[in-house]
């Protein structure tokens, strides 16, 4: 596979290195010449010392035949433009953007970026897993569309306690598919009765969150969904 990596910071550098080790063809674009030379010294002459936001240089770096373009610079707006240019001008099938501001995730997806990786969101998710107050957790966003995998931690007072999964009204396009109980994952069949301490895994569009929160956590509880 031919992967074009744009941005030679820490992420781009290690990404290119790993990809080469897994025998993929890689070109790395880094606009800072000193940094580009430094990387080239270490991992070989796969570095193009130009700005990957410029259409001309993207073309010269072979963007038109890339299977994947990964935009991993430190600036969200640059990553957006790189992916849009790759997608709309060079017909690249799969574009991946690093996003620092989690609020940009939905926008980038809407604007055609195929996959969005948000380190901020991941760290936030990790922190929130340790804080019981936030009962709804975003585990992951699915590549296409605006689907998300969400975990709901059922606590005392949740309207779902004592009810069966089949009994819980789900918004259109949203489904509960598993429950983690005592560290074991159980498929969520309609006859499974929900208990305190269950972690229910749901999949659905972002907009479903408010309803999911009402059904699984309860209206009184303060969850992160309330802020969205």
């Amino acid at each position: 596979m031919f992967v074009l990596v744009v941005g030679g910071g820490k992420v781009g550098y290690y990404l290119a290195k790993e990809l080469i080790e897994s025998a993929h063809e890689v070109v790395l674009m880094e606009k800072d010449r000193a940094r580009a030379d430094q990387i080239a010294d270490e991992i070989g002459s796969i570095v193009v010392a130009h700005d990957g936001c410029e259409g001309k240089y993207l073309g010269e770096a072979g963007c038109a035949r890339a299977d994947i373009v990964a935009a991993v610079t430190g600036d969200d707006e640059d990553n957006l433009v790189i992916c849009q240019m790759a997608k709309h001008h060079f017909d690249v099938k799969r574009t991946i953007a690093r996003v620092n501001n989690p609020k940009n995730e939905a926008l980038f997806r809407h604007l055609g970026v195929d996959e969005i990786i948000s380190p901020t969101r991941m760290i936030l998710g990790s922190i929130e897993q340790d804080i019981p107050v936030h009962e709804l957790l975003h585990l992951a966003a699915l590549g296409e569309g605006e689907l998300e995998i969400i975990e709901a931690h059922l606590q005392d007072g949740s309207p779902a306690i004592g009810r069966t999964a089949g009994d819980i009204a789900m918004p259109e396009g949203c489904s509960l598919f598993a429950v983690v109980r005592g560290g074991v994952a159980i498929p969520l069949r309609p006859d499974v009765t929900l208990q305190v301490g269950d972690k229910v895994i749901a999949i659905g569009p972002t907009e479903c969150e408010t309803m999911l929160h009402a059904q699984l956590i309860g209206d009184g509880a303060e969850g992160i969904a309330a802020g969205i």
Partner: protein
Amino acid sequence: MKIVIVGCGRVGSALAESYDAGGHDVVVLDLSTRAFDRLPGEFRGSAVRGDGTDEDTLRRAGAEGADIFLALTEGDNRNVMAAQVATEKLAIERVVAKINDPVRAAAYAELGIATVCRTTMLADAISGFLGLALSGVPSVIAATGSHHDAPDHLPIGDRGAAAAAAGSAGREA
């Protein structure tokens, strides 16, 4: 009319001043409050410190319902992103982004953003003044598409030529 201007540099502040004096409702945003020193003392519009690519910031600044949105910061990509937020999230109809890279300017016009390219504008102004040949590339390109109906997958060279043809036709008219 309500006019939102992102970037209070020389161009942004000059337009803010002129539209405000013309009786329009002007909101100007910049990341630095120092940029607002360029605005005249009698400026009656609002000057908001904040990131013009951030939807929440734009809403808080009162950009919703604006008739015109101008993205005029020094960063091409920031302008591109601000313009797309204005079009897609705030549903503003008339959006113009300053994009100094001619290739990106032509590309984004096809994705639904009207673009102004200072590079071709200045180059042609100088050549025109000297009576020498012009570039043939338009420096102001009206939005011709939307990212929803893209991509129509023209190779980049053809796109540039098509845009140039459309632009020179427009100039003669």
